[in-house]
């Protein structure tokens, strides 16, 4: 018997990385999964984003666990697309119990040189995308008087980080949004929380643009070249955590074990958070 038997979870940004890991972790506990992803490239993002093949692979992996999975292409920047996802999920599964607003992107630039396009793409995806996902699913959760929402923020939502002004602003914004929505929907039996990961072992950090940011002194830095810099961000002696570590924190937050936890931001950050106030 799983902790989420009979539940349905909607996960944005689920083609790969953390989103895929969340899908599998929740499916393993008995949940059916609805997963969406833009499955396309947003031009200023300096690393390859999820693809349709990867989205289908997530669905296949969930089905291997004998759970149902509905996979759809959708852009979180467009609330109409997310409303379409919710409508289709409801017609197939009848209900949605859990929303993981996970989709996120990043790019690198000092604020002084940042373009409108860079700023808008990150804010629209990472912050407005969470707002859109909540708006799409909340009417249904309110009607059913039940819901578990977890938005993926970041340690970048608790401190400042050079070259990530848009990303940092979006993630601080997500925490403010989470706290506000927690207030608004507590009366309907819905909890709303954020998770704040440190660097996670996914394609978002393992790419040339990120490596070059960490080692500007090298022309073609490798994973080994950047490990020490990544490690210096954390307190525990690890360069990054695994997607599964974030999934396990989310599983706790959406399970009945955390029924009285709402409006909080949970750091899964190898101790980076021990150094700062938030």
């Amino acid at each position, binding site marked *: 018997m799983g902790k989420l038997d009979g539940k349905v979870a909607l996960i944005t940004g689920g083609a790969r990385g953390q989103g895929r890991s969340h899908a599998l972790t929740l499916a393993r506990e008995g949940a059916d999964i609805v997963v969406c992803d833009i499955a396309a490239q947003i031009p200023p993002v300096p690393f390859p984003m999820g693809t349709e093949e990867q989205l289908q692979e997530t669905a296949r992996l969930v089905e291997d666990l004998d759970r149902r999975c509905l996979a759809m292409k959708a852009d979180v920047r467009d609330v109409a697309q997310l409303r379409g996802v919710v409508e289709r999920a409801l017609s197939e599964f009848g209900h949605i119990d859990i929303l993981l607003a996970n989709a996120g992107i990043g790019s690198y630039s000092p604020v002084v040189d940042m373009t409108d396009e860079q700023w808008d793409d990150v804010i629209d995806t990472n912050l407005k995308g969470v707002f859109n996902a909540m708006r799409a699913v909340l009417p249904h959760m309110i009607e059913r008087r039940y819901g578990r929402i977890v938005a993926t923020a970041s340690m970048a939502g608790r401190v400042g980080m050079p070259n990530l002004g848009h990303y940092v602003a979006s993630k601080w914004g997500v925490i403010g949004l989470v706290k506000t929505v927690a207030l608004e929907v507590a009366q309907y039996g819905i909890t709303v929380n954020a998770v704040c990961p440190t660097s996670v072992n996914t394609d978002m950090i393992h790419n040339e643009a990120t490596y070059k940011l960490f080692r500007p002194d090298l022309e073609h830095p490798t994973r080994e070249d950047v490990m020490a810099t990544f490690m210096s961000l954390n307190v*525990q002696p690890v360069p990054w955590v695994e997607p599964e570590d974030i999934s396990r924190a989310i*599983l706790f937050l959406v399970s009945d074990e955390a029924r*009285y936890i709402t409006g909080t931001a949970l750091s899964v950050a190898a101790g980076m*958070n021990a150094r700062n106030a938030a």
Partner: protein
Amino acid sequence: MGRLDGKVAVITGGARGQGRSHAVTLAREGADIVVCDICAPLKYPHYPPATEEDLNETVRLVEDLDRQCIAAKADVRDLRQMEAVAERAMSEFGRIDILLANAGIHSVARNSWEMPEDQWQEMIDVNLTGVWKTCRAVIPHMIHGGRGGAIVITSSINGLKGSPSWSHYVAAKHGVVGLMRSLAIELAPHNIRVNTIHPTGVNTPMASGAPEVLQQVDSWWPNYVSSYLSNLLDVPWVEPVDISNAILWLVSDEARYVTGTTLVVDAGLMVK
């Protein structure tokens, strides 16, 4: 198979309430338990103290789960007594993997500037210095074991926000957050994680057992307590098991990269 098979947990303040619930929750996941409690009255708390019978009942409940349980009468204000608890845990079980610094008291005074000096001192001695002495006694054994480990210190929503009539409690509960953050940095090389947990009011003799005291505070601070007592979620308090479940997650391998953090279990109170 439990999530804590083969582990040993030391829990202070375990005669009843949250401490007992933690002991039972961890035992159910396979841990053997070392539990201590002062089992004696202090000067200022406004609720009856735990008794030796309470402590023995915790032992019985753990043993009913087929786990071993050592119980000791010990005062967290006395480093020698805490060292004796740690040494007994080592001699009987050979290891300590988990420490829950849970022992704590509560008392009220109309305001901070008229609070008796010994009331302030009693609170700081138990709720702040007692946590440090517990850590001081147990951590060397955890480090020496070389297997890593997890420490959870019980703070409070009052470790993150202020309240009238118990500034000594607020100061102690904020203080353990600072201790936790520094310990998290110091112990990371030893793979020992350190976190605090921040409950709202819990259904125990301390919090829900003395409504007349809260009414008294309400009369002193009429604009405050009604907001303090209303959680965001529609429950007057949470149950000990809700705190135990969060602690179980924090000490399990599922949270292997969670350290230095403050986890609230507050029915949404902090977000208001």
